[in-house]
């Protein structure tokens, strides 16, 4: 149960280009927040700042528990591309991140997570022997296997075709319901944002980036699934797609 507090965050690239100026946002524990905005508005930069991959020029990023204690959270990060180690098997790609956390039960954890993401038969394969969608599934499994306090997903389906992306969205939502983690993800796909998030933070196009508005999308998952299907597909295509995905 980790809350993220971002206070007066400022980040510039060089002297002229300031992407965030005194940017503040609070992401509550177990919330699923989507950062929604056009390309180049700083979504990835923002996630990288939260994940500690780059440093802000000024401002604070605090991870707090309830009651309010500062912690260094376990972070799972699904990047735009899978970023798997191509010279190791899928099994090794997953067990390697458990090195710090759970050395004894590593193998059983790997088996369990592979079953969850429906890749049990692929554990001995190398990343180049499976499809792009399956690779992204492994990346999601890698983020979840560490039992993260916080999960970051940076446009995780942007490199996939719509069939693979649609299937993965269904699966990811199921997994997110099981894993109790504060989740922040980015997308420029409105349906994906509505489908996966509880709260959508719409970012401005103007620089420095600011919050345009925050939309609450916390309603029943079944409604979301129906809405998603209605939006994406015309009836006949939807029927075929539904058959295909069954």
């Amino acid at each position: 149960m980790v809350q993220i507090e971002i206070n007066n965050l400022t980040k510039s690239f060089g002297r002229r280009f300031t992407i965030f100026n005194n940017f503040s946002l609070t992401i509550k524990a177990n919330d699923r927040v989507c950062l929604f905005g056009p390309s180049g508005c700083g979504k990835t930069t923002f996630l990288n700042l939260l994940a500690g991959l780059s440093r802000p020029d000024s401002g604070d990023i605090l991870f707090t528990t309830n009651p309010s204690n500062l912690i260094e959270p376990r972070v799972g990060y699904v990047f735009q591309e899978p970023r798997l180690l191509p010279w190791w098997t899928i099994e090794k790609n997953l067990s390697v991140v458990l090195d710090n956390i759970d050395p004894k039960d590593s193998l059983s954890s790997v088996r369990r997570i592979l079953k969850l993401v429906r890749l049990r038969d692929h554990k001995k394969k190398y990343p180049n022997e499976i499809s792009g969608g399956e690779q992204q599934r492994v990346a999601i499994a890698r983020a979840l296997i560490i039992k993260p306090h916080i999960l970051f997903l940076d446009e995780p389906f942007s490199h996939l075709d719509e069939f693979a992306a649609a299937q993965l969205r269904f699966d990811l939502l199921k997994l997110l319901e099981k894993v109790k983690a504060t989740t922040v993800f980015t997308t420029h796909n409105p349906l994906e944002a509505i489908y996966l998030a509880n709260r959508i933070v719409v970012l401005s196009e103007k620089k420095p980036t600011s919050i345009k508005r925050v939309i609450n999308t916390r309603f029943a998952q079944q409604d979301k699934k129906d809405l998603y299907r209605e939006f994406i597909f015309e009836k006949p295509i939807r029927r075929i797609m539904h058959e295909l995905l069954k």
Partner: protein
Amino acid sequence: MKITRAISALKHLARSFRFFPEVSSLALLIIAWHFVSKTVPSFLLPSPLSTFLETYKTLFSTDFLSNAFLTLKRAFNGFVIAFVVAHILVLSSIYIAALKRFWSPLILIGLSIPATIGIFVTVVMLGSRGPIALIVVVIILTPLMYLMLYPAFQNINKGLTEMAKVYRFRRSVFLRYVIVPQLAPYYLSAIRAGVNDSWKLAILAEVFSFGDGVGYRILQYFNLFSIRQVLAWFISFLLILVLIEYGVFQNLERFLVPKSRKA
């Protein structure tokens, strides 16, 4: 019909004998050597059989072993120094862009120095009994090592490094699982090329400078016009290098370069 039968027999041999292609290419070379040696006087090109008998004698003589040890020692020391210096240059170039520009004209000059010029200059400066081979190997090899190792560090995948940082890999795990597999192919090529060049350079330097070493002994036999001895010494030394290739490099490659990378 006969040709088809011969081809199918060859295919069968290739299937049943793992090293057939390698052995057949060597056999072809020896056959060609045999026929050429029949057409010229034996003092110009001795037959393969007599050369191999001489090689066998040479290989187990203390004279050869002590001289081969000296040559290998010079080549190895030169290679190690060149390797270390190249690393200093590469790492400083990666971290400080201005240093890359500072080193680049020196690297270019180093690459264009012919080995013989390097040897002559060093002999003139240090005298023929100085550490000529060592210095020549270092001067000629360092720029080459730099050129081979620089891309290894430049092409380290930033995305994987970020992934390792997010998942808090321990330093040893990060090196073993992320960095070493990326560097290994470059390192293997650099070490192979470095070792091969260093012994050639060491032998050449010995020809011009020393009173010992394989190069010097080959020069002595050449002056005596004993081509059989020249070839025997050369083949004996070559066998040691083949032993290093199969005993060290191939095992190192198997250990360092994972399966998927080789595929």
